């Protein structure tokens, strides 16, 4: 019974996708694209087989059955219909750099390059008036059709004067608001545009806020500091396939990427369950790859797919490098995740005791969850206490 209804669901889903792809195909190609993205991929030295393999991996990443692979491939081919406007607000350019890491000749980036990047301050050749013109042209020409990607928090303090761009001294928040009005879809790339980010950490001197707080258009959050390039491209594909926003969690993060905790698929999970912990950085446990919970890993409270996707083409990820997860894809993690090298209960600042330290907190409230024997149970109990979905 179950299997049948599942098949039925997939069937209807598949039909919806097919319709969607057909719709997209009917859109006119962008003017500079006189060859299909597929041709471009082949010219860059990738075989059709490479391309299909990549499509299959993306399909799996989006938690779709393998039979959807050809459709994903189709969707990628029509991706060149979508112009991208990428804005930089209060940020460090790390998210743009993350995107660059997927660069030529990887298929991910080729596709990204092929999606016309109409405005991107770090990469575009034009400066000054000419750069502004590019933005205005794109907004006008592709009205209602462009994808807006925003990197950085939006400073709203002092009437938004902490960021201005252009000869007219336009405020960052006004630019973000204007470009969001006619966007086909809006992605907040990184924790800063998703949740305010590092500049919004207490005391938030510039009044930085998430993009979603200044626009009433729906915003898909792709947090991480920075997020992996796979999550960025995957989110885009999801939009192409469904023609609507993906299933989101309480923080508007796509569920396909942010559904599971780091902890759930962690390569050191066996050691957690076995009660084998690194007690101190550099000890024998660290050399043996034991669990990092006791040295501050926030994997149990953090929803992201790092343990599966890793970074830099699978080179590594923080837990592999012996450093716990810092919770960077969670809202306000700078303020809520406590001390980076200690379990969450040991937070030092912004406590009721005025930042006087872990001992005070643990002693007076008595929430010392770490004991030698019961650590596993306690940690899981803590998760449900700490990590409720937003109201």
């Amino acid at each position, binding site marked *: 019974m179950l299997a049948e209804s599942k098949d039925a669901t997939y069937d209807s889903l598949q039909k919806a996708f097919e319709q969607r792809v057909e719709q997209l195909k009917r859109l006119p190609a962008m003017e500079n694209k*006189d*060859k299909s993205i597929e041709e471009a991929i082949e*010219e860059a030295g990738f075989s059709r087989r490479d391309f299909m393999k990549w499509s299959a991996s993306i399909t799996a990443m989006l938690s779709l059955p393998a039979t959807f692979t050809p459709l994903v491939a189709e969707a990628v081919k029509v991706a060149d219909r979508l112009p991208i406007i990428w804005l930089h607000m209060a940020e*460090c*350019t*790390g998210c743009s*750099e993350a995107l*660059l*890491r*997927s*660069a030529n*000749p990887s298929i991910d980036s080729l596709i990204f390059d092929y999606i016309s990047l109409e405005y*991107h*301050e*770090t*990469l*575009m*050749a*034009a*400066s*000054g*008036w000419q*750069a*502004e*013109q*590019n933005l205005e042209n794109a907004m006008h020409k592709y009205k209602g059709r462009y994808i807006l990607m925003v990197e950085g928090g939006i*400073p709203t303090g002092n009437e938004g004067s*902490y*960021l*201005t*761009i252009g*000869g007219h*001294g336009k405020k960052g928040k006004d630019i973000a608001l204007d470009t969001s009005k006619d966007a086909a879809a809006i992605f907040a790339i990184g924790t800063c545009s998703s949740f305010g980010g590092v*500049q919004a950490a*207490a005391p*938030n*001197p*510039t009044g930085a806020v998430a993009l979603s707080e200044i626009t009433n258009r729906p915003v898909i959050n792709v947090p991480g*500091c*920075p997020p992996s390039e796979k999550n960025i491209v995957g989110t885009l594909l999801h939009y192409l396939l469904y023609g609507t926003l993906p299933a989101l969690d309480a923080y508007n993060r796509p569920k396909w990427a942010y559904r599971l905790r780091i902890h759930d698929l962690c390569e050191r999970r066996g050691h957690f369950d076995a009660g084998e912990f690194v007690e101190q950085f*550099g000890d024998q446990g*660290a*050399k043996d*790859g034991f669990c990092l919970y006791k040295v501050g890993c926030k994997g149990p409270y953090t929803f992201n797919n790092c343990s599966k996707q890793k970074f830099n083409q699978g*080179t*590594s*990820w*923080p*837990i*592999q*490098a*012996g*450093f716990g997860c*810092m919770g960077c894809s969670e809202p306000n993690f*700078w303020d809520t995740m406590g*001390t980076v090298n200690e379990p969450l209960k040991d937070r*030092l600042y912004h406590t009721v005791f005025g*930042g*006087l*330290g872990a001992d005070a907190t643990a002693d007076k409230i008595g929430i010392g969850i770490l004991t030698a024997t019961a650590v596993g149970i306690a940690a899981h109990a803590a998760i449900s206490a700490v990590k409720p979905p937003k109201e």
Partner: protein
Amino acid sequence: MSKRVIVDPITRIEGHLRIEVVVNDDNIVEEAYASSTLWRGLEVIAKGRDPRNVPLLMQRICGVCTYSHYLKSTMAMEDALGIKIPYNAELVRSLMDQALFLHDHIVHFYHLHALDWVDIVSALSADPVKASELAFKYTDFPIATGTDDFARVIDTVGKFAKHPQGLGPFANAYWGHSTYRLTPEQNLIALSHYLKALEMQRIVAQMQAIFGGKNPHPQSLVVGGVTCVMDMLDPARMGEFMVKFKKLADFVNNAYYADVLMAAEMYKTEPSVMKPMGVKNFMAFESMMLGRKDYLFDSGIIMNGDLTKTFDVDISKITEEATHSWYADDEALHPYDGKTNPNHTGFVDGESIGPDGNVVHTKNIDPEGKYSWIKSPRYDGHPMEVGPLASTLVSYVKGNKRVVKIVNDFLEKAGVPAAALFSTLGRTAGRMLQAKLIADHGLTAFNNLIENIKSGDTDTCVPYVIDKDKEYKGVGIGDVPRGMLSHWVRIKNGVVENYQAVVPSTWNAGPMDAKGQRGPYEGDLMGLKIADITQPLEIIRIIHSYDPCIACAVHVMDTKGNKISEYKVDPLYDGACST
């Protein structure tokens, strides 16, 4: 009649920067202003936090020179707490640093700066066969310069460049500008390397991620050492690093070096590029550990372009002021004695030359008032340039054998005197020479690490205690890809009481001081002749040659110094901080 030209945004940099100049009838710059238009206030946020959290937070100052702030902030904590980290940890950090420098310099030259030197449209008319032969003029082992490589480049890029209107990231630039000097074949060689460098920067990022877990924003440094002990003890992992390093070294020697040599040949007669610098004072600090007491780059100061002697860096002579910066206190010499609340007065209504050459209404800098989020740091009252050129020059003048050889070789090949380094071209060459020094000598650190592990030392981290009843203060200082960087911290009650970062781009990009002295950016633009004020390529080229990192530059809250043990951090919160 004088005309005002605004370039905002300056693209292909980190952060938000405006340049504004006033030119006379001959289009010669008579006034120049640099303004950072974003403030984030991270030092304010650092206050009251656990010292172990702050290095990760400080790393978020910049995602381009990612790791620089992480490293210096961690070092500041260790200095404060009196921690001596294991030798292994020092070397692993150095290997990660090498990856950062190589990444940063390659991305800067090819993806952020090259389009100021290389005309893409011209490249498309090149003869691939001629270009392929020409590549051997600059190196014996050229990379990605076969005729097949060139055919692909022409095809890939041609699609963008043929359409002048609103098409892709190459749209609407200054192609065909009169100050582009390379031949079509030379342009094609460089353009091919632009594309190749996209691949190389990915590999060098992987190099850092081997020990860092990820890049940007690696996550393997802790106060007391490094956490990546498993990677360090894994021979396959180490081998992976070495192989990638060699690949990068090859690219630096046979593409980056060759391209700068090629650019030097053609641009050494271009006035806008060879124009003498406005500020000829340079400062650098020891960096890039190769072994015990062995650093690749030296500390020192050069004054007034005098290449016969250097001076020691005395940190107590560093001061800052905010006369033209958007902070509340105007005190020229002792800003730390006042409050430093942000005080954004914005721009003023005015006119400037628009994109079509007509006068348009704009928001302009008020040179009498405040106009930037960056402050004006001074050394003993003098503006200073920091960066790879400063580092290379200081080491050169000090007789650093590794550096002297490489610099002299380059000068000979390029056919220019050492004085030619005091120019935009020289700054770009200095960065390349720094990359070459790392490419040629970086593996010394790698080999020393192997030797040390072989001797049985596998320590990567030392334990320490933060005593909540004690007060600590410390500094982490050294050259990072954009120049001398220092992080300063005071710890009290077990949390950060005050924090400050004095960053490279502040030195270079700061506005005028109370005496009207201009910093390096502004100084370099003075007297510049601009061919076409609606296409101010000369301005952009000069500014890009500094590799601006403006998110970094606006973080400085304040500094002081009579002695190294006497400084005040972040007076915004009135933190009494001089002991």
